[in-house]
């Protein structure tokens, strides 16, 4: 046919105020009817100058600011920063503190994954699994509040130790939670994972191949969803992770292709189970004797000169902290740079959101699980 009906592309701004952009992300969609021809993410609506801020703050004072980066996994952020500073200062943290860090870190990983798969389900349209999972998240918050004093922004893991000690009662409660959590997770899993509509919506959608994932710097569950077996807890163990027995779930394309949204989703559910395993082992191993403030430095006046890069596995992937210290009597870092996993995950949107439908953009965005606080910092 020679005569072609001309159609115009419609440019739609998805966000910054939109129910499922997970914060203040703006996506500029160029659509042909329902089909997205191009998708460009615009960031920076939540930029709070975290890195610049650090240059005028004491090392201890930076920790509450790291809470606010990835506000869904504050513990892991605290931890990443502390690992960097401890590496620079050469502090060896006591075993009790490490156990505590592992427990709260993994609890927070579960809480973060609950948000990830819960809101993913919400984006697809299933409301109930989201709320059922949130009940468990509340329980985790209760535990973390008892340990640290806050429900979301903990400021719990300090350089050289942790902020507060826990008692045997808390350990018992955590153990009880672990037992209660398993059936609750199974319920959500049953409700959502294999549901035909859910599978239709997520399998074979937003496929990120192994090569693509690596070249875009994917880390964490997103990378493992694409079939790469890489987890810093196993491959470059820090803290006590060599002691625990756990598996790294890897996407296998059970419902569609390797690296589709369903794979990224199911990895998170399975990782929750592994985290529970780790917590249970840590609860066995921990002893309540010992001082948690033992290795906490009194001040940072004797900070060595130098630079350090440390990375750790947060729920969203590999968080790298780069700190330059001027040393001597300056108790503030000269420069702090954060390599945030969500930022790298977000950058793939432009490539995989071509030729999909508007509903798929939502699914893809939900499945890569970004937190804008961490993207913009």
């Amino acid at each position, binding site marked *: *046919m020679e005569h072609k009906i*001309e*159609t*115009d592309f419609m440019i739609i701004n998805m966000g910054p105020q939109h129910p499922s952009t997970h914060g203040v992300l703006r996506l500029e969609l160029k659509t042909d*009817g329902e089909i997205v021809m191009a998708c460009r993410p615009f960031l920076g609506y939540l930029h709070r100058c975290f890195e610049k801020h650090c240059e005028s703050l004491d090392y201890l004072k930076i920790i509450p600011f790291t809470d606010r980066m990835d506000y869904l996994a504050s513990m892991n952020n605290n931890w990443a920063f502390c690992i960097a500073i401890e590496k620079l200062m050469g502090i060896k943290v006591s075993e009790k503190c490490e156990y505590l860090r592992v427990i709260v870190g993994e609890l927070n990983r579960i809480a973060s994954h609950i948000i990830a798969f819960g809101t993913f389900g919400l984006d697809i349209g299933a409301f109930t699994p989201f709320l059922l999972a949130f009940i468990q998240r509340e329980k985790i918050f209760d535990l973390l509040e008892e340990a640290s004093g806050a429900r979301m922004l903990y400021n719990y893991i300090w350089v050289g130790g942790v902020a507060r000690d826990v008692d045997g009662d808390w350990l018992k409660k955590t153990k009880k939670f672990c037992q209660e959590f398993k059936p609750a997770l199974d319920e959500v899993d049953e409700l959502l994972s294999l549901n035909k509509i859910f599978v239709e919506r997520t399998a074979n959608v937003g496929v990120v191949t192994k090569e693509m994932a690596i070249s875009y710097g994917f880390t964490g569950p997103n990378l493992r969803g694409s079939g790469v077996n890489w987890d810093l807890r196993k491959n470059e163990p820090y803290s006590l992770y060599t002691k625990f027995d756990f598996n790294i779930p890897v996407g296998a394309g059970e419902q569609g292709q390797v690296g589709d949204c369903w794979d990224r989703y199911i990895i998170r559910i399975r990782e929750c189970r592994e985290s529970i395993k780790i917590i249970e082992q840590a609860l066995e191993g921990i002893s309540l004797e010992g001082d948690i403030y033992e290795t906490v430095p009194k001040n940072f006046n004797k900070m060595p000169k130098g630079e350090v890069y440390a990375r750790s596995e947060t729920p969203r992937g590999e968080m790298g902290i780069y700190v330059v210290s001027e040393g001597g009597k300056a108790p503030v870092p000269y420069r702090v740079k954060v390599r945030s996993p969500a930022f790298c995950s977000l950058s793939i949107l432009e490539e995989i959101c071509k030729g999909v439908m508007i509903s798929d953009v939502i699914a893809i965005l939900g499945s890569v699980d970004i937190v804008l606080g961490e993207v913009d910092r």
Partner: protein
Amino acid sequence: MVPADFVFLILATLIVACGFVVVFHSKIIYSAFALLFSFFGVGGIYILLNADFLAGTQLIVYVGGISVLILFGILLTKKIYNLTTEETSTQKIIGGATSLAFLGALAALIFNTDWQIVTTTQEFTPQTLEIGKAFMGNFILPFELAAILLLVALIGAVIIGRDEKKEEI
């Protein structure tokens, strides 16, 4: 004046007014919506004439089907928010003259016809049964022919649609 006359006047005004909007409004979307209401009014007239089945069909086919299709087509075109019809004034005189002549001819026909006004005292009877019987009885051949025609049109549409899609891919 009986209520029926009153209703008729309302419906007739609706149809004619909407017809004017269809022709004269500069925004094509208004024309489309007006066409829809015009169809709706015609459906009302059918009810007034005791043709209930026909009225239902009018609603389901013209209002629910054809108008929506037209609206759909308009909404999918580009620049939908300020789409206007082209108004060229080259043919104004000829066009006006033709339509006036046509109107005059129609009027003459209407006034010269000897309309037989039948006043029935019988109750309203449903038409569905009779229509069904007519379709399956005396008029089976035209009915089937229409069905075949529609089928051909349907298949043709599918084939045209497919071709275009192949090109795109």
